[in-house]
């Protein structure tokens, strides 16, 4: 889909420590997902752009492996950094 099904705060998503992936239910029965490093770089890009990027340059997007729907993940870079620290793993280079 060209537009986002929803905008979800990363606080409201679940984080799977094993796969290091944020996920959220999709109305198709599967889950939207985004890998933590991808979200880190996406929020980093957004922060460098003072929080504003054209829609086609956004990458804080979780996709569903079973359908075409996507959600936009809302949050701050620091929220993601907090997860790395909580899990005691280094930030991506």
């Amino acid at each position, binding site marked *: 889909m060209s537009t986002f099904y929803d905008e979800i705060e990363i*606080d409201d998503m679940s984080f799977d420590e094993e796969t290091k992936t944020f996920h959220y*239910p999709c*109305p*198709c029965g*599967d889950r939207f997902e985004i890998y933590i490093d991808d979200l880190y770089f996406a929020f980093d890009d957004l922060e460098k752009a003072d929080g504003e990027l054209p829609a086609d340059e956004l990458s804080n997007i979780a996709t569903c492996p079973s*359908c075409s729907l996507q959600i936009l993940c809302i949050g701050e870079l620091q929220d993601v950094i907090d997860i790395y620290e909580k899990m005691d793993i280094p930030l991506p280079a």
Partner: protein
Amino acid sequence: MGMDSLGITDLEDRDTPFPTLSTSNFSSLFANKHIPFTDKTVNSYNIKYLKCGGNHTLILLENGILIGAGELRELRNDYIINDGWCLLNYKIHEFIKTELNGLVDILTIESISTCWDSTFIEIKNLEKNIIQIFSFGQQCKMELGRPESNSKFNVISSDIDCVASELHSCLYTTIAVFRYVDNSTVLYGWGFNNKQQLFETQNKSDKFIQSPKIVKQFLNNPNVEFRLGKDFLIILNYKENSLICLGNPKLKTEVEQKNFSLNKISKVIVMWSSLHFLYENESLVSLGNGQLGQLSLNNSHLGPVKFLEAGSEHTIYTSVNEPFIVSSWGWGEHGNCGKLDKNKSNINDQQIFTQPNEILNLQKNEFNNYNKIQNLYGGCASTFILITKE
């Protein structure tokens, strides 16, 4: 989508109806079996409720028999009805027998609901009119209403003289409605409260309601109904002719602006992110998220409606004038609205149905002389059609 939630064991999407379960042999299959939580005075194998979670489906029959398909977690047992469906009563009894308020013979499964990855069962004590709600499965937003590690499955029990009750779940949130003999109605809620659909939040921890809490109480008012979407709660207070939306602020504003009068509304159904109001004059008003075609029939005249039900983001419909046809509109990527229109060049346009699309026509396609559409049910990108013999 989890295809085994359709009760079909292969993993292919279906865009034409496919037989998944028949209750025609149930009376002989279950004859002379002492199945816990069935009401021996009810000799009916008709479907009372069909509810869908993210990857599982439950069917409760009028006599209290509960069957399920898909990811049933701890409820799956070895009592197989067919490749996709199994009986759940025995397993539920095994788990909760120590928590029951009464002898099993006077207890029946009254109602069910399904969150994303969990299941709720209402057990009714037929002598004392007490309801006990139990939860099973997994949680990530406190939706079980109890600690997951808890060895007890009970979430809440009603007081005595509870004459009716209801359970509604959507995604990570559940509400239970207890109606008492003194005409009071008590609404409990638990689970995810991310958009304040249950309670106003003061801080982040209020997003998670760990155990049932009273959301609203209505004294001397049995005429109040509730609908639950993924981030909103609709309260239909017929006595006071008021309609309140809690939660999703955009939807809440839309509802307030419409200033609905319940006197003229005959039915309200909800999808995950939108809802329909069917008026007595057979016109439809739709609100909420419409980007997937959910609101395409807003302000249109449907004509006399026989069935109107909702899945996660699609609507299923049968008219009085053509009671042999099931149509659907909204988001149909997985075949839940029928065959995609391949004449449309854009794949996204193919998946969005802005007009009712015929899923089943029993005049063209009969299933072994089953010629009557008895009911419709919607799930996550899935549609269930109950057909019977006239």
